[in-house]
Protein backbone atom coordinates (compact mmCIF):
# COMPACT_ATOMS: atom_id res chain seq x y z
CA UNK A 1 0.00 0.00 0.00
CA UNK A 2 1.02 3.62 -0.47
CA UNK A 3 2.76 5.51 2.33
CA UNK A 4 1.05 8.44 4.06
CA UNK A 5 1.05 10.62 7.12
CA UNK A 6 -1.48 9.77 9.77
CA UNK A 7 -3.36 12.09 12.11
CA UNK A 8 -5.96 11.24 14.71
CA UNK A 9 -7.73 14.47 15.67
CA UNK A 10 -9.79 14.50 18.85
CA UNK A 11 -12.35 17.12 17.88
CA UNK A 12 -14.23 18.21 14.80
CA UNK A 13 -12.52 21.55 14.27
CA UNK A 14 -9.11 19.91 14.45
CA UNK A 15 -10.29 17.30 11.94
CA UNK A 16 -11.54 19.97 9.54
CA UNK A 17 -8.20 21.76 9.79
CA UNK A 18 -6.26 18.54 9.13
CA UNK A 19 -8.66 17.52 6.36
CA UNK A 20 -8.51 20.74 4.36
CA UNK A 21 -5.12 19.97 2.87
CA UNK A 22 -5.29 19.34 -0.86
CA UNK A 23 -4.14 15.72 -0.49
CA UNK A 24 -5.86 14.77 2.74
CA UNK A 25 -8.50 12.07 3.14
CA UNK A 26 -10.78 11.33 6.07
CA UNK A 27 -10.67 7.74 7.26
CA UNK A 28 -13.77 6.28 8.94
CA UNK A 29 -14.39 2.52 8.81
CA UNK A 30 -11.81 2.20 6.06
CA UNK A 31 -13.76 -0.42 4.10
CA UNK A 32 -13.62 1.71 0.97
CA UNK A 33 -10.69 4.09 1.48
CA UNK A 34 -8.23 1.33 2.45
CA UNK A 35 -9.39 -0.68 -0.55
CA UNK A 36 -8.83 2.17 -3.03
CA UNK A 37 -5.48 3.01 -1.43
CA UNK A 38 -4.38 -0.61 -1.91
CA UNK A 39 -5.30 -0.33 -5.58
CA UNK A 40 -3.37 2.93 -5.95
CA UNK A 41 -6.62 4.63 -6.93
CA UNK A 42 -6.63 7.01 -3.96
CA UNK A 43 -3.22 8.44 -3.08
CA UNK A 44 -3.67 10.78 -0.14
CA UNK A 45 -0.58 12.23 1.50
CA UNK A 46 -2.41 12.67 4.78
CA UNK A 47 -4.91 10.25 6.23
CA UNK A 48 -7.07 11.88 8.88
CA UNK A 49 -8.54 9.21 11.16
CA UNK A 50 -11.89 10.56 12.33
CA UNK A 51 -12.83 7.57 14.47
CA UNK A 52 -12.26 9.42 17.74
CA UNK A 53 -14.68 12.25 16.90
CA UNK A 54 -17.87 12.41 18.97
CA UNK A 55 -20.20 11.65 16.04
CA UNK A 56 -21.25 8.24 17.27
CA UNK A 57 -24.83 8.82 18.51
CA UNK A 58 -28.33 8.42 17.15
CA UNK A 59 -30.50 11.16 18.64
CA UNK A 60 -34.14 12.25 18.50
CA UNK A 61 -34.70 15.58 16.79
CA UNK A 62 -37.12 18.25 17.98
CA UNK A 63 -39.16 18.04 14.78
CA UNK A 64 -39.85 14.34 15.45
CA UNK A 65 -37.10 13.10 13.17
CA UNK A 66 -33.89 11.28 13.97
CA UNK A 67 -30.24 12.36 13.67
CA UNK A 68 -27.76 9.64 12.69
CA UNK A 69 -24.16 10.45 13.62
CA UNK A 70 -21.66 10.16 10.76
CA UNK A 71 -19.60 7.63 12.70
CA UNK A 72 -22.44 5.34 13.76
CA UNK A 73 -21.78 2.08 11.96
CA UNK A 74 -24.14 0.82 9.27
CA UNK A 75 -24.91 -2.20 11.51
CA UNK A 76 -25.65 -0.10 14.60
CA UNK A 77 -27.92 2.11 12.50
CA UNK A 78 -29.84 -0.76 10.91
CA UNK A 79 -30.38 -2.55 14.24
CA UNK A 80 -31.22 0.56 16.27
CA UNK A 81 -34.76 0.01 17.61
CA UNK A 82 -35.84 3.53 16.58
CA UNK A 83 -34.60 2.99 13.05
CA UNK A 84 -36.14 -0.50 12.87
CA UNK A 85 -39.54 0.66 14.08
CA UNK A 86 -39.80 4.09 12.52
CA UNK A 87 -37.56 3.90 9.43
CA UNK A 88 -37.73 0.24 8.41
CA UNK A 89 -37.03 1.28 4.80
CA UNK A 90 -33.60 2.51 5.85
CA UNK A 91 -32.89 -0.56 8.00
CA UNK A 92 -33.92 -2.82 5.14
CA UNK A 93 -31.71 -1.06 2.58
CA UNK A 94 -28.67 -1.17 4.85
CA UNK A 95 -29.16 -4.87 5.57
CA UNK A 96 -29.45 -5.55 1.84
CA UNK A 97 -25.91 -4.27 1.36
CA UNK A 98 -22.39 -5.65 1.84
CA UNK A 99 -21.90 -8.28 4.60
CA UNK A 100 -22.25 -8.32 8.39
CA UNK A 101 -18.48 -7.84 8.77
CA UNK A 102 -18.44 -4.86 6.43
CA UNK A 103 -21.54 -3.29 8.00
CA UNK A 104 -19.89 -3.55 11.43
CA UNK A 105 -16.97 -1.46 10.19
CA UNK A 106 -18.69 0.80 7.64
CA UNK A 107 -20.00 4.13 8.91
CA UNK A 108 -22.88 6.30 7.76
CA UNK A 109 -20.57 9.09 6.58
CA UNK A 110 -18.36 6.61 4.74
CA UNK A 111 -21.31 4.94 3.05
CA UNK A 112 -22.38 8.26 1.51
CA UNK A 113 -18.86 8.91 0.24
CA UNK A 114 -17.92 5.46 -1.06
CA UNK A 115 -16.54 5.44 -4.61
CA UNK A 116 -18.03 3.70 -7.63
CA UNK A 117 -17.37 -0.01 -8.26
CA UNK A 118 -16.64 0.56 -11.97
CA UNK A 119 -13.96 -2.00 -12.88
CA UNK A 120 -11.91 0.51 -14.87
CA UNK A 121 -11.89 2.98 -12.01
CA UNK A 122 -10.17 0.30 -9.90
CA UNK A 123 -7.71 -0.79 -12.58
CA UNK A 124 -5.00 1.87 -12.90
CA UNK A 125 -3.76 0.31 -16.14
CA UNK A 126 -6.95 1.32 -17.95
CA UNK A 127 -8.25 4.81 -18.80
CA UNK A 128 -10.73 6.45 -16.45
CA UNK A 129 -11.89 10.07 -16.36
CA UNK A 130 -13.00 9.77 -12.77
CA UNK A 131 -9.60 8.63 -11.57
CA UNK A 132 -7.50 10.61 -14.05
CA UNK A 133 -9.43 13.52 -15.58
CA UNK A 134 -9.05 13.69 -19.36
CA UNK A 135 -7.79 10.15 -19.76
CA UNK A 136 -10.92 8.73 -21.39
CA UNK A 137 -13.50 6.22 -20.17
CA UNK A 138 -12.77 2.51 -20.44
CA UNK A 139 -16.34 1.51 -19.71
CA UNK A 140 -17.90 3.25 -22.70
CA UNK A 141 -17.69 0.57 -25.35
CA UNK A 142 -16.09 -1.75 -22.81
CA UNK A 143 -17.35 -4.10 -20.13
CA UNK A 144 -20.30 -2.18 -18.74
CA UNK A 145 -22.84 -4.63 -17.36
CA UNK A 146 -22.97 -2.78 -14.02
CA UNK A 147 -23.02 0.74 -15.44
CA UNK A 148 -25.53 3.57 -15.63
CA UNK A 149 -28.59 3.79 -17.85
CA UNK A 150 -29.72 7.20 -16.60
CA UNK A 151 -28.01 10.56 -16.22
CA UNK A 152 -24.66 9.41 -17.63
CA UNK A 153 -22.40 11.62 -19.71
CA UNK A 154 -20.02 10.98 -22.61
CA UNK A 155 -17.22 11.14 -20.05
CA UNK A 156 -18.45 8.73 -17.38
CA UNK A 157 -21.18 6.10 -17.05
CA UNK A 158 -20.41 4.99 -13.48
CA UNK A 159 -23.05 4.31 -10.85
CA UNK A 160 -23.11 5.14 -7.15
CA UNK A 161 -23.05 1.74 -5.45
CA UNK A 162 -24.75 2.45 -2.11
CA UNK A 163 -27.97 0.80 -0.97
CA UNK A 164 -28.36 3.00 2.10
CA UNK A 165 -28.33 6.14 -0.03
CA UNK A 166 -31.25 4.92 -2.14
CA UNK A 167 -33.42 4.74 0.98
CA UNK A 168 -32.11 8.10 2.23
CA UNK A 169 -33.11 9.66 -1.11
CA UNK A 170 -36.66 8.29 -0.80
CA UNK A 171 -36.89 9.48 2.82
CA UNK A 172 -35.62 12.96 1.83
CA UNK A 173 -32.89 13.02 4.45
CA UNK A 174 -30.53 15.95 4.94
CA UNK A 175 -26.77 15.67 5.20
CA UNK A 176 -25.19 17.85 7.90
CA UNK A 177 -21.68 18.96 7.06
CA UNK A 178 -19.08 21.22 8.60
CA UNK A 179 -16.03 22.69 6.97
CA UNK A 180 -13.61 25.59 6.72
CA UNK A 181 -16.56 27.89 5.88
CA UNK A 182 -18.84 26.67 8.66
CA UNK A 183 -21.83 24.35 8.86
CA UNK A 184 -24.49 23.64 6.26
CA UNK A 185 -27.25 21.14 5.55
CA UNK A 186 -27.53 19.56 2.10
CA UNK A 187 -30.82 18.11 0.85
CA UNK A 188 -30.17 14.49 -0.05
CA UNK A 189 -31.07 14.96 -3.72
CA UNK A 190 -28.40 17.67 -3.93
CA UNK A 191 -25.70 15.64 -2.19
CA UNK A 192 -24.62 13.31 -4.98
CA UNK A 193 -24.27 14.66 -8.51
CA UNK A 194 -24.32 13.52 -12.11
CA UNK A 195 -20.95 13.06 -13.83
CA UNK A 196 -21.39 15.71 -16.55
CA UNK A 197 -18.00 16.97 -17.60
CA UNK A 198 -16.55 16.71 -14.10
CA UNK A 199 -16.85 12.97 -13.45
CA UNK A 200 -14.17 13.06 -10.76
CA UNK A 201 -16.64 14.85 -8.47
CA UNK A 202 -18.95 12.27 -6.88
CA UNK A 203 -20.81 14.75 -4.71
CA UNK A 204 -21.18 18.39 -3.74
CA UNK A 205 -19.01 18.24 -0.63
CA UNK A 206 -16.42 21.01 -0.76
CA UNK A 207 -12.76 20.50 -0.03
CA UNK A 208 -12.20 19.89 3.66
CA UNK A 209 -15.87 19.44 4.47
CA UNK A 210 -16.76 16.68 6.88
CA UNK A 211 -20.13 14.94 7.11
CA UNK A 212 -21.21 15.12 10.75
CA UNK A 213 -24.71 13.58 10.62
CA UNK A 214 -27.66 12.49 8.51
CA UNK A 215 -31.04 13.89 9.52
CA UNK A 216 -34.17 11.86 8.90
CA UNK A 217 -37.42 13.84 8.71
CA UNK A 218 -40.40 12.98 10.93
CA UNK A 219 -42.41 11.39 8.09
CA UNK A 220 -41.05 7.85 8.13
CA UNK A 221 -43.31 5.75 5.84
CA UNK A 222 -43.12 2.86 8.31
CA UNK A 223 -46.20 1.07 6.93
CA UNK A 224 -46.02 1.21 3.14
CA UNK A 225 -42.43 0.78 2.04
CA UNK A 226 -40.07 -1.69 0.46
CA UNK A 227 -36.44 -2.03 -0.62
CA UNK A 228 -36.11 -4.41 -3.54
CA UNK A 229 -32.55 -5.22 -4.62
CA UNK A 230 -31.76 -7.29 -7.73
CA UNK A 231 -28.23 -8.64 -8.20
CA UNK A 232 -26.19 -11.49 -9.61
CA UNK A 233 -26.22 -13.46 -6.35
CA UNK A 234 -28.64 -13.17 -3.48
CA UNK A 235 -26.29 -11.76 -0.85
CA UNK A 236 -22.95 -9.92 -0.65
CA UNK A 237 -23.24 -8.38 -4.11
CA UNK A 238 -23.89 -4.88 -5.36
CA UNK A 239 -27.23 -4.01 -6.95
CA UNK A 240 -27.77 -4.27 -10.68
CA UNK A 241 -31.01 -2.44 -10.01
CA UNK A 242 -32.59 -1.57 -6.69
CA UNK A 243 -35.76 0.31 -5.78
CA UNK A 244 -36.78 2.08 -2.60
CA UNK A 245 -40.49 2.88 -2.43
CA UNK A 246 -42.25 4.85 0.30
CA UNK A 247 -46.00 5.48 0.12
CA UNK A 248 -48.56 7.28 2.26
CA UNK A 249 -52.07 5.99 1.66
CA UNK A 250 -55.29 7.76 2.61
CA UNK A 251 -58.11 6.05 4.48
CA UNK A 252 -59.83 5.04 1.26
CA UNK A 253 -56.60 3.46 0.05
CA UNK A 254 -55.54 6.16 -2.41
CA UNK A 255 -51.92 7.17 -2.75
CA UNK A 256 -51.36 10.54 -1.07
CA UNK A 257 -47.58 10.66 -1.27
CA UNK A 258 -45.28 8.46 -3.35
CA UNK A 259 -41.52 8.36 -3.34
CA UNK A 260 -39.52 6.13 -5.67
CA UNK A 261 -35.72 6.03 -5.77
CA UNK A 262 -33.67 3.77 -8.03
CA UNK A 263 -30.21 2.44 -7.19
CA UNK A 264 -27.60 0.87 -9.46
CA UNK A 265 -28.74 2.86 -12.49
CA UNK A 266 -27.08 6.28 -12.18
CA UNK A 267 -24.29 8.32 -10.63
CA UNK A 268 -26.71 9.12 -7.79
CA UNK A 269 -29.94 7.67 -6.40
CA UNK A 270 -32.44 8.36 -9.18
CA UNK A 271 -35.70 10.15 -8.46
CA UNK A 272 -38.14 11.73 -10.91
CA UNK A 273 -40.82 13.91 -9.26
CA UNK A 274 -43.05 13.68 -12.36
CA UNK A 275 -43.14 9.89 -12.02
CA UNK A 276 -44.14 10.17 -8.38
CA UNK A 277 -46.92 12.67 -9.06
CA UNK A 278 -48.49 10.26 -11.57
CA UNK A 279 -49.35 8.13 -8.55
CA UNK A 280 -50.79 10.90 -6.43
CA UNK A 281 -54.53 10.56 -5.79
CA UNK A 282 -54.67 7.20 -7.56
CA UNK A 283 -55.76 3.82 -6.26
CA UNK A 284 -52.74 1.47 -6.30
CA UNK A 285 -52.84 -0.79 -9.37
CA UNK A 286 -50.92 -2.19 -12.27
CA UNK A 287 -51.88 0.58 -14.71
CA UNK A 288 -50.57 3.49 -12.61
CA UNK A 289 -47.54 1.47 -11.49
CA UNK A 290 -46.61 0.87 -15.13
CA UNK A 291 -47.03 4.54 -15.91
CA UNK A 292 -44.75 5.51 -13.02
CA UNK A 293 -42.18 2.88 -14.02
CA UNK A 294 -42.02 4.28 -17.54
CA UNK A 295 -41.82 7.86 -16.33
CA UNK A 296 -38.95 7.21 -13.92
CA UNK A 297 -36.91 5.48 -16.65
CA UNK A 298 -37.70 8.05 -19.32
CA UNK A 299 -34.59 8.86 -21.34
CA UNK A 300 -32.80 5.68 -20.24
CA UNK A 301 -29.94 4.70 -22.54
CA UNK A 302 -28.25 1.31 -22.59
CA UNK A 303 -24.52 0.89 -23.21
CA UNK A 304 -24.80 -2.60 -24.67
CA UNK A 305 -24.07 -5.02 -21.86
CA UNK A 306 -26.25 -3.11 -19.39
CA UNK A 307 -29.22 -2.50 -21.69
CA UNK A 308 -31.19 -5.21 -19.88
CA UNK A 309 -31.32 -2.87 -16.89
CA UNK A 310 -33.90 -0.63 -18.55
CA UNK A 311 -36.61 -3.27 -18.62
CA UNK A 312 -35.38 -4.73 -15.31
CA UNK A 313 -35.72 -1.34 -13.63
CA UNK A 314 -39.28 -0.91 -14.93
CA UNK A 315 -40.36 -4.33 -13.72
CA UNK A 316 -38.64 -3.78 -10.38
CA UNK A 317 -40.50 -0.49 -9.89
CA UNK A 318 -43.86 -2.12 -10.63
CA UNK A 319 -43.10 -4.98 -8.24
CA UNK A 320 -41.80 -2.68 -5.50
CA UNK A 321 -44.83 -0.41 -5.74
CA UNK A 322 -47.03 -3.49 -5.34
CA UNK A 323 -45.07 -4.64 -2.29
CA UNK A 324 -45.24 -1.22 -0.66
CA UNK A 325 -48.95 -0.67 -1.38
CA UNK A 326 -49.80 -4.08 0.06
CA UNK A 327 -47.70 -3.45 3.16
CA UNK A 328 -45.60 -6.54 2.40
CA UNK A 329 -42.02 -5.26 2.16
CA UNK A 330 -39.28 -7.37 0.63
CA UNK A 331 -37.55 -9.56 3.25
CA UNK A 332 -33.76 -9.23 3.29
CA UNK A 333 -33.46 -12.76 4.71
CA UNK A 334 -35.84 -14.78 2.58
CA UNK A 335 -34.88 -13.39 -0.81
CA UNK A 336 -37.85 -14.79 -2.70
CA UNK A 337 -39.63 -11.88 -4.31
CA UNK A 338 -43.27 -11.77 -3.28
Amino acid sequence: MIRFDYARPADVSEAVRAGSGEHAAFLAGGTNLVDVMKENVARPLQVVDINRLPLTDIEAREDGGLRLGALVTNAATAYDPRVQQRYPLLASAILAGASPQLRNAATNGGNLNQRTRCYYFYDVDTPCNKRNPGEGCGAIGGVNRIHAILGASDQCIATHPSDMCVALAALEAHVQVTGPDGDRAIAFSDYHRLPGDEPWRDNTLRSGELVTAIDLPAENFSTHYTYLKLRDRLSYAFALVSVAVALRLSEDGRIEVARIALGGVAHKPWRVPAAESLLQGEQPGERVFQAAAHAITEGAVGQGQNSFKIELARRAVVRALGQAAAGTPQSQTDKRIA
Partner: protein
Amino acid sequence: MNPAVTLDRTSGRRVAAEPIASLTLRLTVNGEERVLQVEPWTTLLDLLRDKLDLTGTKKGCDHGQCGACTVLIDGRRINACLKLAVTLEGQEVTTIEGLGQPGNLHPLQAAFIEHDAFQCGYCTPGQICSAQGLINEGHARNRADVREQMSGNICRCGAYTNIADAVLEVLEQGKQP
Protein backbone atom coordinates in the same frame (compact mmCIF):
# COMPACT_ATOMS: atom_id res chain seq x y z
CA MET B 1 2.82 19.50 11.82
CA ASN B 2 5.27 19.20 8.94
CA PRO B 3 4.03 16.58 6.54
CA ALA B 4 6.53 13.78 6.08
CA VAL B 5 5.25 13.04 2.59
CA THR B 6 4.98 15.77 -0.01
CA LEU B 7 4.18 15.87 -3.67
CA ASP B 8 6.88 16.95 -6.09
CA ARG B 9 4.78 19.01 -8.47
CA THR B 10 7.06 18.80 -11.47
CA SER B 11 7.51 15.05 -11.46
CA GLY B 12 4.19 14.26 -9.77
CA ARG B 13 6.07 11.83 -7.51
CA ARG B 14 5.54 11.37 -3.83
CA VAL B 15 8.56 12.35 -1.84
CA ALA B 16 9.19 11.31 1.74
CA ALA B 17 11.01 14.10 3.56
CA GLU B 18 12.05 11.62 6.18
CA PRO B 19 10.96 8.09 7.00
CA ILE B 20 7.47 8.19 8.51
CA ALA B 21 7.69 7.27 12.15
CA SER B 22 5.98 4.17 13.36
CA LEU B 23 3.28 4.77 15.91
CA THR B 24 2.88 3.15 19.27
CA LEU B 25 -0.22 1.02 19.34
CA ARG B 26 -1.74 -0.53 22.45
CA LEU B 27 -3.90 -3.51 21.62
CA THR B 28 -5.27 -6.49 23.51
CA VAL B 29 -4.80 -9.56 21.33
CA ASN B 30 -6.48 -12.78 22.47
CA GLY B 31 -6.54 -11.51 26.05
CA GLU B 32 -2.94 -10.39 26.12
CA GLU B 33 -2.01 -6.70 26.22
CA ARG B 34 0.49 -5.75 23.57
CA VAL B 35 2.43 -2.55 22.95
CA LEU B 36 3.48 -2.47 19.31
CA GLN B 37 5.29 -0.20 16.89
CA VAL B 38 3.19 -0.01 13.75
CA GLU B 39 3.43 1.91 10.50
CA PRO B 40 0.21 3.76 9.70
CA TRP B 41 -0.47 1.80 6.48
CA THR B 42 -0.24 -1.64 8.11
CA THR B 43 -3.54 -3.47 8.08
CA LEU B 44 -4.66 -5.48 11.07
CA LEU B 45 -4.37 -8.59 8.91
CA ASP B 46 -0.71 -7.97 8.08
CA LEU B 47 0.03 -7.06 11.69
CA LEU B 48 -1.48 -10.32 12.94
CA ARG B 49 0.18 -12.56 10.38
CA ASP B 50 3.54 -10.92 9.78
CA LYS B 51 4.35 -9.31 13.12
CA LEU B 52 2.51 -11.38 15.71
CA ASP B 53 2.81 -14.69 13.88
CA LEU B 54 -0.89 -15.35 14.30
CA THR B 55 -1.31 -17.00 10.92
CA GLY B 56 -4.68 -18.59 11.70
CA THR B 57 -6.29 -15.50 10.21
CA LYS B 58 -6.08 -15.98 6.45
CA LYS B 59 -5.45 -13.61 3.58
CA GLY B 60 -7.88 -14.51 0.82
CA CYS B 61 -8.75 -11.60 -1.48
CA ASP B 62 -7.33 -8.77 0.68
CA HIS B 63 -10.28 -6.59 -0.46
CA GLY B 64 -13.16 -7.46 1.87
CA GLN B 65 -14.76 -9.71 -0.71
CA CYS B 66 -14.21 -13.16 0.81
CA GLY B 67 -14.29 -13.04 4.63
CA ALA B 68 -11.23 -15.29 5.20
CA CYS B 69 -9.65 -12.56 7.38
CA THR B 70 -12.65 -12.18 9.71
CA VAL B 71 -11.67 -11.43 13.32
CA LEU B 72 -13.52 -9.99 16.30
CA ILE B 73 -12.95 -6.43 17.55
CA ASP B 74 -14.55 -5.96 20.98
CA GLY B 75 -16.69 -8.99 20.13
CA ARG B 76 -17.87 -7.79 16.70
CA ARG B 77 -16.66 -9.28 13.46
CA ILE B 78 -14.86 -7.25 10.82
CA ASN B 79 -12.58 -7.89 7.83
CA ALA B 80 -9.02 -7.47 9.14
CA CYS B 81 -7.73 -6.73 5.62
CA LEU B 82 -9.55 -3.39 5.40
CA LYS B 83 -8.75 -2.15 8.90
CA LEU B 84 -5.67 -0.05 9.51
CA ALA B 85 -4.15 -1.35 12.74
CA VAL B 86 -3.37 2.13 14.12
CA THR B 87 -7.08 2.95 14.21
CA LEU B 88 -7.68 0.25 16.83
CA GLU B 89 -5.82 1.90 19.74
CA GLY B 90 -7.07 0.46 23.05
CA GLN B 91 -9.36 -2.13 21.49
CA GLU B 92 -9.56 -5.88 21.89
CA VAL B 93 -8.86 -8.28 19.02
CA THR B 94 -9.85 -11.94 19.07
CA THR B 95 -8.58 -14.29 16.39
CA ILE B 96 -9.17 -17.99 15.84
CA GLU B 97 -6.16 -18.69 18.09
CA GLY B 98 -7.99 -16.90 20.91
CA LEU B 99 -11.21 -18.89 20.52
CA GLY B 100 -9.89 -22.41 20.98
CA GLN B 101 -6.74 -24.52 20.91
CA PRO B 102 -5.99 -28.16 20.11
CA GLY B 103 -7.30 -30.17 23.04
CA ASN B 104 -9.51 -27.29 24.11
CA LEU B 105 -11.75 -26.73 21.15
CA HIS B 106 -14.29 -23.95 21.02
CA PRO B 107 -17.85 -25.34 20.60
CA LEU B 108 -17.91 -23.94 17.06
CA GLN B 109 -14.65 -25.71 16.18
CA ALA B 110 -16.05 -28.97 17.54
CA ALA B 111 -19.30 -28.47 15.63
CA PHE B 112 -17.42 -27.76 12.37
CA ILE B 113 -15.59 -31.09 12.77
CA GLU B 114 -18.77 -32.91 13.75
CA HIS B 115 -20.70 -31.57 10.76
CA ASP B 116 -17.89 -31.88 8.20
CA ALA B 117 -18.17 -28.13 7.63
CA PHE B 118 -14.94 -27.71 5.65
CA GLN B 119 -12.86 -29.38 3.01
CA CYS B 120 -9.64 -27.45 2.27
CA GLY B 121 -10.03 -25.45 5.49
CA TYR B 122 -8.73 -22.13 4.21
CA CYS B 123 -11.91 -20.19 4.92
CA THR B 124 -12.58 -22.00 8.21
CA PRO B 125 -10.91 -19.62 10.73
CA GLY B 126 -12.84 -16.75 9.18
CA GLN B 127 -16.06 -18.79 9.14
CA ILE B 128 -15.68 -19.64 12.83
CA CYS B 129 -14.82 -16.09 13.90
CA SER B 130 -17.76 -14.89 11.83
CA ALA B 131 -20.07 -17.43 13.47
CA GLN B 132 -18.94 -16.29 16.93
CA GLY B 133 -19.65 -12.71 15.84
CA LEU B 134 -23.09 -13.76 14.60
CA ILE B 135 -23.84 -15.34 18.00
CA ASN B 136 -22.52 -12.29 19.91
CA GLU B 137 -24.51 -9.87 17.77
CA GLY B 138 -27.75 -11.73 18.55
CA HIS B 139 -29.79 -11.10 15.40
CA ALA B 140 -30.09 -14.69 14.16
CA ARG B 141 -33.02 -16.87 15.19
CA ASN B 142 -33.29 -19.59 12.57
CA ARG B 143 -31.54 -21.30 9.69
CA ALA B 144 -32.52 -18.64 7.14
CA ASP B 145 -31.03 -15.95 9.42
CA VAL B 146 -27.83 -17.98 9.84
CA ARG B 147 -27.44 -18.41 6.10
CA GLU B 148 -27.95 -14.72 5.39
CA GLN B 149 -25.78 -13.56 8.28
CA MET B 150 -22.95 -15.93 7.31
CA SER B 151 -23.01 -14.68 3.72
CA GLY B 152 -19.91 -12.52 4.27
CA ASN B 153 -17.80 -15.68 4.25
CA ILE B 154 -17.17 -17.36 0.93
CA CYS B 155 -16.29 -21.09 0.84
CA ARG B 156 -14.83 -22.19 -2.48
CA CYS B 157 -15.31 -25.86 -1.55
CA GLY B 158 -19.01 -25.13 -1.15
CA ALA B 159 -19.46 -26.55 2.35
CA TYR B 160 -22.23 -24.04 3.04
CA THR B 161 -24.93 -26.54 4.01
CA ASN B 162 -22.74 -28.11 6.67
CA ILE B 163 -21.45 -24.75 7.87
CA ALA B 164 -25.03 -23.60 8.41
CA ASP B 165 -25.78 -26.85 10.31
CA ALA B 166 -22.76 -26.38 12.57
CA VAL B 167 -23.48 -22.73 13.33
CA LEU B 168 -27.18 -23.35 13.90
CA GLU B 169 -26.41 -26.15 16.35
CA VAL B 170 -24.13 -23.98 18.50
CA LEU B 171 -26.54 -21.05 18.27
CA GLU B 172 -29.40 -23.23 19.53
CA GLN B 173 -27.33 -24.83 22.31
CA GLY B 174 -26.63 -21.32 23.55
CA LYS B 175 -30.33 -20.60 23.70
CA GLN B 176 -31.11 -23.53 26.02
CA PRO B 177 -31.22 -22.73 29.73
